[in-house]
């Protein structure tokens, strides 16, 4: 039947739906509008709170994640989003493809030298306030690849991280727990400790003229952004 035609008649009785409604409402006066909240606050429909507190509550309950896969941990991250673990139950499971629409970045994997500047860039593109969950040992210290010549010893060298979830890879349950903890902190309005980030994006022209910079001076434009890794100082 095409929906363009008006429905001519309802053949059967409407009793079933009426019955369901009746049984839902139950006996006595209709108390559908007397919610639990009404009970708690009395008859006034207003809640007095601080705007800050309200904003924190809202923020903590609606978090948009950045769809950001790096390495092995991202497989477990996908499982965390998908059915069974379903991060969305906690109000934190909408992956956004663009950093401009995201609040939370889960860093799921090993950061290597070539990717460091790109990750920093993606982080910078996210609007404030933004939060980062470091997933896996690699984002804590470099994990199993800590001794590699090319591996950044933890994502914290480049961007600040709010919550670390250890494991290699952490189970989805662990990531859910980490995200829930982050939400709890946001709701309470706690801020994270300030960390020192040794690696920054700088303009090539601003770097100190040491041996390495002299050597590359011909290849790199003064205005290009570079990240300088001092491996010897890394933990």
């Amino acid at each position, binding site marked *: 039947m095409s929906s363009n035609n008006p429905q001519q008649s309802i053949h059967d009785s409407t009793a079933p739906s009426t019955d369901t409604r009746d049984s839902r409402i139950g006996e006595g006066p209709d108390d559908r509008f007397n919610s639990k909240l009404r009970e708690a606050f009395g008859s006034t429909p207003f809640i007095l709170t601080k705007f800050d507190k309200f904003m924190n509550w809202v923020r903590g309950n609606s978090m948009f994640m950045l769809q950001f896969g790096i*390495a*092995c941990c991202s497989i477990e991250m996908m499982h965390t989003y998908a059915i069974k673990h379903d991060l969305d139950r906690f109000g934190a499971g909408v992956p956004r493809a663009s950093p401009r629409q995201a609040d939370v970045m889960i860093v799921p994997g090993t950061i290597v030298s070539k990717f460091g500047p*790109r990750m920093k860039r*993606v982080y910078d593109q996210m609007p404030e306030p933004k939060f980062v969950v470091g997933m896996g040992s690699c984002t804590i210290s470099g994990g199993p690849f800590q001794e590699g*010549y090319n591996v950044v010893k933890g994502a914290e060298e480049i961007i600040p991280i709010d919550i670390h979830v250890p494991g290699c890879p952490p189970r989805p349950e662990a990531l859910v727990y980490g995200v829930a903890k982050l939400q709890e902190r946001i709701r309470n309005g706690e801020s994270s400790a300030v960390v020192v980030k040794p690696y920054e994006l700088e303009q090539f022209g601003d*770097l100190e003229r040491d041996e*390495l910079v002299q050597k590359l001076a011909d290849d790199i434009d003064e205005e290009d952004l*570079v990240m300088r890794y001092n491996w010897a100082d890394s933990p």
Partner: protein
Amino acid sequence: MSTGLERERPPVEVTEADLEAVIGDRALSRDDHLNAPGFVIRPDDVQDVLSDLKERAGFDHLSCLTAQQYEDRYESIYHMKKYADPTQEVSIVVPTPTDEPVSESAEPVFRTADWHEREAFDLVGIDYEGHPDPRRILLPETWQGHPLSHDYDQEKPQLVTLTEHANPVQPDHHEAESDTMFLNVGPHHPATHGVLHIKAVLDGESVVDVDPDIGYLHRCEEQMCQQGTYRHQIMPYPDRWDYVSAGLLNEWAYARAAEDLADIEVPEYAQIIRTMGAEFCRIASHMLALATFALDVYGDFTAIFQYGMRDREVVQDILEDLTGQRLMFNYFRLGGVAWDLPEPREEFFAKCRNFLDELPAKVDEYHDLLTGNEIFQVRTIDTGILEPDVAKDYGCTGPVARGSGIDYDLRRDDPYGYYPELDWNVVTMDGCDNYARVLTRMQEVEESAKIIEQCLDLLEDWPEDERDIQSNVPRTLKPDADSEIYRAVEGAKGELGIYIRSDGTDKPARFKIRSPCFHNLSALGEMVEDEYIPDLIASLGSLDIVLGEVDR
């Protein structure tokens, strides 16, 4: 589809005498490896010898190129095989002096040498004369030094650039006289399976040229393996190459190479467990390939992607029961496996059988959603064509090669484990397009299920007092000095090979990984030229690459 364990036309056997005749007096000496005869040649004979071997002796598969530095020289080893029979192998060893490591490029003979030689230059520092594109491949352009060469200092600071990318539609951004436009895809991009960067040149909506830029996940896997001892320290790393649940398949690659190198036997019972576990991994891996492919072509995060994830959860549960971990199993040991099947065994068997019983219905469901869907067919049929000769030239293997009609599967052609005793088929398709590759994977899932079923039967009836899970392996393994081996297994994505050179200590002197994804990805350019840009994404998805394995 060809049948189980025999090929239709057994290829002509090439004896060592034939090889000597082909190479003739260009062979300076012999340097045999455990897997193949090796011939030492001069650096300027590379093209000659390789093309003679290809044309006259049928070695049409340049499986791998290993570069390494010795005390007194550099060395490039070309590991050659035949697609028709991968047990016929030959190694061509090309030494070059330390002060002037220049060797002739093999790129005109095998296209796949292109990326390999770039990698050898990048990591070890050998120059290839006549190479069309001698850039670094894994490390950033501005990197100083070659990390796998002897005098590399890991403490030295490094600079990495980030070039600001202008808006592609800005008027000053494309060349004035041509109509082409330059477009970056990645490295952070949801449709690439990880951190891959593709530099694409577009003419209108069609792709003129693509240049995959890899190395955003180069985690120094080879260095890590060279720092570990054979017995226990290396095994955790293979799990992290192809991390899409293909852990056991990768572990098998290392186990096979090291066991052959150190002459270790594996009990039959352990082989069956290995075979079963590996096939579970293959199923999980192919499921993810399917799920993400649907995500790529439909943008469908809600149905097929979630279905794939649902089924993977079941497999991961089973694997967790077996190995103790969901993803990074670390379950194989040299000479066997870590422990026996979980107790109570009946429960484990029941769980596996349940999964197998439900699988056909699920496969039907996928066919309904995917292959039977008209939109899907329009997107995939006749897009991303990869002709068989091109695939061979680029060293493609696995479902990518089999989707192009190349009947090549190491489980049958270079038998290992318990595969030869079981009854199953190698799936091949002649479509050469994205559709064929996806379909190949789906059918391989069913074949894997067949293998698992037979393994379960065997395991169930195995007498209790013969359940040997490990053979006796010395606490410290020290294979003979200067023994070299190259061995491959059929990983989830194709031929996963390991080259190990031992120097008599308990750690490998050189550990080289031949990654199937690396080769499959290098063929991307051939598949997408003159196609539309959405087909680029579909083709990339159908290659099913894992950046952990591409970059290592």
